[in-house]
């Protein structure tokens, strides 16, 4: 063993010694969770307008933009007696297959109403492949107030012009 070798060991050990006094980098997940960046792309959510109506109008543009063919939308016509969203059309079925999804965010970009947003939930694991297909009831955020849920009857005839807000991501 030569002298330079010994020097290297001392150098290495000094790093170890120094780190012993630093706070640990390991996070005790799941007890402790690391915050994500604001533009982090996690599981999707379907947003609502301030009055509780769904922003999604069932246009399937997200599905068309999706490179992984992960989204399935079945639209339908709605009436004022059972209104889901502004305008004539709403998503009767909306499903995302999270195993197919590559979290690219194209759906969010394609959406004309800002209805679908990739949010911060990343805890996506399943015991069963079928559970990876999340349906509209799980995707939709809760209404702002209990009486603002959908579908609900709207007294005056719905505003058919408001289906697509003039400014992307805007509200009615």
């Amino acid at each position, binding site marked *: 063993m030569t002298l330079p070798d010994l020097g290297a060991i001392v150098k290495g050990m000094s790093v170890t010694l120094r780190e012993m006094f630093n706070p640990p980098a390991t996070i005790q997940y799941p007890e402790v969770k690391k915050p994500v960046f604001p533009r982090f792309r996690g599981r999707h959510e379907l947003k609502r307008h301030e009055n509780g109506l769904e922003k999604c*109008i*069932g*246009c*399937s*543009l997200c*599905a*068309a933009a999706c490179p992984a063919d992960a989204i399935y939308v*079945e*639209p*339908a*016509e709605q009436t004022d007696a059972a209104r889901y969203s502004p*305008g*004539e*059309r709403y998503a009767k079925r909306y499903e995302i297959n999270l195993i197919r999804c590559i979290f690219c965010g194209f759906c969010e970009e394609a959406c*004309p*109403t800002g209805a679908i947003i990739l949010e911060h939930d990343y805890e996506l694991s399943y015991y069963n492949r079928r559970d990876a297909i999340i349906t509209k009831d799980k995707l939709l955020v809760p209404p702002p107030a209990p009486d603002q849920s959908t579908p609900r009857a709207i007294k005056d005839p719905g505003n*058919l*012009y408001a*289906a*697509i807000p*003039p400014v992307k991501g805007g509200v009615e």
Partner: protein
Amino acid sequence: MPKVTIDAKTVEVPNGTLVVEAAKKAGVEIPVFCYHPKLASVGMCRMCLVEVGTPRRGKDGQIEMDANGNPAIAWMPKLQTACTTVISDGMAVRTDSAQVADARRSVVEFLLTSHPLDCPICDKGGECPLQNLTMAYGPGKSRFPVESKFHNEKRVPLGDLIMLDRERCIQCSRCIRFQDELADDHVLGFQARGRGIEIVSLSTPEFDSKFSGNTIDICPVGALTSRDFRLSARVWEVHDYPSVCAHCSVGCNLLICERDHQIKRIVPRENEAVNAIWICDKGRFAHHFTTAPDRLTTPLVRKNGSLQPASWDDALDAIVAKFAEIKKQSGASALAGLGGDRTANEDLYLFQKLFRQVLGSNNLEHRVGWSASNVGVDLVRMYGAGADTNLGALDKSVTALVIGADPEEEQPVIRLRLTRSVRNFGLNLIVANGRVTKLASHAKQSIVYRYGAESAFLLGMIRTILDEGLENKEFIGARVNNLDAVRKSIEPFTVEHCAELCDVKPEKIRDAARLIAQSPSFLILYGREAMAAQQHDPAITSSIETLLLITGHVGRVNNGLIALYPHNNSTGAMDFGLLPTHSAGRVKSDVKGLSAREMLSGKARALYVMACDPAADGNFTKPDLLVVQDLFLTETAKLADVVLPAQSFAERDGTLTNTERRVQLFRAAIKPIGESKPDWWIVAEIAKRLGATWHYRNSAEIMDEIAATVPLYAGVTYAALSDNVMMPRPPYGQGNPSDEPTEIAMGELENVSSGKQWLSVAESDASAKFELFWNEPRGEGREAKNELVLAVARSLYDRGTLVGKTKIVQPRVPAPYVEINSQDAEQIGVGDGARVRVSFDSRVIELNARVDGHVPPGTVLVPNNLDGTAALPMGAWVKIEKV
């Protein structure tokens, strides 16, 4: 031909061509909104503006040359609309200049100021000309604040089938022009002015037309959309399958748009020879029967008096055992097969093969219910109209006689195409019937004869031709025998005498005859009312034949005969010998089998009923063994010993032969319902269990066998039938389907035709000799007091099993009615809309009276496929009283 130069490309086009069409030929795209190749030009949208110039001429009238020695062009000072400008020799057109691009950009910008831009919720989105042309030629950005958008009413129902969005409309008037020019229902119009101009319905009920759905296809925006398809899928998400309509005998080409094994919508598929780009509303909307909840899903076998679900094996074994037993006891002649003329050729072929080859019985029929009057097996085989006769493009060299037919109700698209021929190409149309039909309004000569005296009318024309020496002597000399005998027999039938018999003025008969004889081409289209009469009066058959032969109008394109049958495969049922008299290929059989009436009255001990419902018409005696194969538990199926679930046209492949003898292929679009099987599979299974060595893996193999063994169908294989099939989008998984909108909306038509017609004897054998024959006419001219002769017609929409399953068209099914002439109505003392009692023999029914000038005095008309009007006999004498 004149030469035109478009963007430096020179093309030769015929005189009268529009610049926009010449550009297509040069491969230059000129964007259009209001122009559509199938409609008259109006120049309303200004999208097609181009620079146009003509060769400059000097004072001496000579074309001046420029420095390079090319003709100098005098450009017009302003842009011209390519859709209204007709080409001239030497014309030059520029579509690639900055001025043109600027004009297009401005037109799009202008259209969009009043357009809601709600593409994400619009059913047209993805196949919308406005979307496409905005992307291609629009400004990309609006200079108008969004709040200044012009708003108009959305979601305006325009009748039961169509939804109008007034703010999406770009006022191109394509819909109005289609209704006025082709559908001939003047039910749409513009109202108000300027920006607020809007489409309104002018009829009650709203948008009252049998062709309304076509306006959805040609509307260049999402202003007119289908209330059936409405917001139920995006057009790029559906898969398109080529199909053929399951209803009438026109055989319109369709696309079934499927998503998740549901038929989302049906749209026309271009086939210039059959339906061009149109279909009727029945073909478009009445498809819900395919997935109706009461479809049969399993075989049923009668146990202890009731029908119980059973496995295929049990059901088939039960049939085979009973067939064998009855054959042993009573011989093969006790077995009979009744096939409907709604099933595919493959099914019909195997059905008759089962009976003729495996069971050894010639008892086959298809003529029950509406098809009872399907006649003309030999007439069509001999003189069927020449191949490639295009009913939508008959010009003034052609005379067409439509006799005893009501195509508006029975073959709607044929009516539409004849209208186009008359309007656009100058067809000479003669319409003859015992009443006034819609088609008659386009006729050069409209003739209303007395029902029952059809043959007198035809004889009157023959007599005129012979008397005036108008016959085609050359043709007769070379090909026709026996004319002298006919001349002799027709001696007592002077034109005046015939005229009296059929109650038509002699001059009208003579005019019609002269027109026919002097026309270079002549077609007879004869319909169900004439066929019904033909069964009692064989002189109709011989007169039709004589008329064609003495004028020599057979065996060429636009000449000969078209029999207008009721169902999508009536022709196929005759081609494949579902007849006691003819076997496959329309070959006369040696032994005559049982007729439909004999089968149903119990002469057959075992009856196999495929896709028809004879018990619904009454007079049905249940045989010892009754097997029914159908989509639904029909009246006949309720009595059956074994019921077998068949598949609809949407679930399987097959071919159909339309009324013009054109064989066409349709493809499966959705999954089979329940355990249902294709008809051919079921027939083949039964044959196998009876010991036949049949190995058909799919319907294409059956067609291969047909193509090889039935001479009429030589070469008609699936491969041959797949030629030129127009698909508007690339197949699923190949290319981006949303890149290719339907050509129909964009007006980018290919004018191709697909399918294969078999040739009549007159056409395939240029040296065939024909024999004239004579039948004494049996027209009756009875005049009775208080009694009126009953004519039976058909309404397009009915209460039948197929239309009945589509809710959206139900309001279109008329309430049962009787049409009465105003003279008779006055005598009875009723007006339009009154309730009347119609009695004949011992039956009495109550109906609404319609007094609207469609029937002559002495005749009443009842469509007998409405509630409670079934089984009314044609030609009966009825009494009508006020209720």
